[in-house]
């Protein structure tokens, strides 16, 4: 399957910030129209989101916690896209990363300064293998990464569910794994929060105490670090130059002496390791365990949206991840505030992506306005 035409690359690699901004505005406009048709006041609904996101320090903290995995899976998808590869497999890479972190976090005993990096490293390795498989069979056998990663997503899901049936790892009958060790967690003040001093602090400090009511953790620091690393690797290193060259024009890159096949594998492995890290941080900072997955959780699929809205850059993914995190967290509140369905958020996000997919339409709209 030759899905990625040159047009796609041109569009995805050079899409401008302005176009994204217009798409976001149009997305909210369509969302407003849908709300209006359904008999709700869109201004009230959007105001409920804004209030639900910004009116308490705790809310802001929650948005960041929601955004953290989305930023990183967004980076994963974006990184692969810069090499001209469509990583639909972030979902599965996330799952194997979470599983690896949960296993390493539960079985291994180490001091925290070693345990945390080890868990993240193992999760990134698992993700890299998962992404690397797709990269390898693309490079070697020409199987398109979209189809192989869809398969790998399901294999990851069932593998993770299977691991929970093992006596030593899963808490039998609960469909959940054992909790990871304290030394594998990246929570901030997790233990201290439940001491008397901690409870007293939360009660007496208005802003900080409120923030501490949410499961604050170091995840966002890692997300920002990864975003910086991605920017650095892509823009400041030879490797990044080569990967981007393959993304722009694989034939020219090959002619210029770049090993395209190796680049494909490298790119998918790095993308996989990022998504794997996202899964690890979610386990280490928020859930502290993994649970049986009846369906895909969607972190990887949401990451695709984040990457597309974020223009496939590091900073763009941070911005888009925060936007998506805010919509997810704040959007859940419009149900209570105005009675409008939360899912208007999905319609907004879908519309934004649809407009991002067709810059031609936006150009037409703007031309006709001028003329």
């Amino acid at each position, binding site marked *: *399957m*030759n*899905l*990625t*035409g040159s*047009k*796609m690359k041109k*569009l*995805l690699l050079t899409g401008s910030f302005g176009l994204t901004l217009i798409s976001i505005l149009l997305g909210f406009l369509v969302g407003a129209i*849908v709300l209006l048709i*359904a008999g709700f006041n869109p201004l009230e609904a959007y105001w409920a989101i804004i209030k639900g996101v910004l009116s308490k320090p705790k809310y802001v903290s929650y948005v960041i916690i929601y955004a953290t995995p989305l930023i990183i899976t967004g980076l994963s998808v974006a990184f692969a896209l810069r090499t001209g590869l*469509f990583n*639909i497999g972030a979902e599965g890479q996330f799952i194997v990363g979470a599983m690896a972190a949960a296993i390493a976090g539960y079985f291994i005993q180490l001091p925290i300064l070693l345990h945390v990096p080890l868990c993240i490293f193992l999760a990134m390795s698992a993700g890299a293998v998962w992404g690397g498989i797709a990269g390898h*069979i693309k490079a070697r*056998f*020409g*199987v*398109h990464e*979209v*189809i*192989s990663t*869809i*398969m*790998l*997503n*399901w*294999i990851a899901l*069932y*593998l993770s*569910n*299977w691991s929970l*049936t093992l006596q030593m790892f899963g808490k039998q009958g609960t469909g959940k794994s054992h909790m990871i060790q304290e030394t594998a967690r990246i929570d901030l003040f997790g233990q201290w929060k439940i001491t008397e001093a901690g409870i007293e602090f939360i009660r007496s400090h208005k802003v900080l105490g409120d923030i501490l009511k949410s499961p604050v953790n170091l995840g966002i620091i890692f997300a920002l670090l990864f975003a910086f690393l991605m920017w650095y690797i892509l823009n400041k290193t030879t490797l990044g130059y080569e990967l981007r060259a393959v993304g722009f024009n694989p034939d020219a890159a090959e002619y210029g002496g770049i090993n395209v096949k190796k680049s494909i594998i490298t790119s998918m492995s790095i993308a996989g390791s990022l998504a794997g890290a996202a899964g690890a941080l979610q386990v280490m900072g928020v859930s502290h365990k993994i649970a049986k997955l*009846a*369906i*895909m959780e969607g972190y990887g*699929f949401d990451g*695709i*949206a984040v990457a*597309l809205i974020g223009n496939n850059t590091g900073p763009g993914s941070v911005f888009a991840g925060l936007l998506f995190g805010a919509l997810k967290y704040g959007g859940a509140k419009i*149900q209570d505030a105005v*009675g409008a*369905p*939360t*899912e*208007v*958020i*999905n*319609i907004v*996000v*879908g*519309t*934004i*992506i*649809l407009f*991002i*997919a*067709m810059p*031609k*339409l936006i150009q*037409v709209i703007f031309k006709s306005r001028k003329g």
Partner: protein
Amino acid sequence: MELIIQDLGFIIGTTLMYSTPLIFTSLGGVITERSGVINIGLEGMMYFGAFAGAAVAYFSQNPWLGLLCAALGGAFWGLVHAIACVSFSAEQIVSGIALNFLGAGSALFISRLLFDGATQTLTVARKIPQPLDFLFGEGKMFPSSGFMDLVFNRFATVYLAFFLVFVVWFVLYKTKLGMRVRAVGENPEAANTLGINVTRIRYGAVIMSGFFAGLGGAAMSIAVVSRFSNTLISGHGFIALAAMIFGKWKPQGALVACLLFGAAKGFEIFLGSKGVPVAGDILAMLPYVLTLIILVGFVGKTTAPAAIGKIFDKGDHS
């Protein structure tokens, strides 16, 4: 012996039941991709179809009307995909991703409005009927719960799916229209030169893919089960897409692949019902592993329609 035959009947019957939604959707995939347009929004269209089918069947108490509306609902999102991809040169995969958000989002949005804030419909009074039901039971031609009953006493959607595989095959390979669709998918420039309206063919094919995906969704919500819920369609559209590629972009190939995925589900349910201590998750994983292996081993990259994913701009060529 009799028990084994009965078990076999159970497995075949379950396989048929779970394959059906995939077959419809996969056929949709065949139609659109043969015209050169990728549609990874099938998942969202199926999702919407599952909801629309269940909602209409619930309110009208008519499962056939539900099935029709599911197809039309899917076709609507197909139209959106066609407008984006054919008229506005949208990147097809990106548009497909958007449609997955839109299809699922709009289904849940409307569900909450119609069903008191719930992300699932109520149970429909009448499911899609089992047309051969009159043959089975006490004093009928075949006993109930026998092999014949288990295999052939199936929902009408099962028979419809098999029939449509034949129809799509016939149209694609034996009619002028099908030849045009394939020509547009292989070489739109040449097709255009020959006077084929590439835009119209692609619009038709993409809308039909939504139509079929909608049928697939309803085959799940008002036949396999009797209501829509937010977790009912979870990746089935993607599996159907994989089955289509696994089947080398052919309707009959897609059918075989869908039956394989359905059979894995059938075995999983069978072993679960027997309490056999086989890891169900490993079994469920098998068809995906097998697909990967077969993709690597047998399906080269050359089998896809040549012009797939490429934007056709008449202005550049005429």
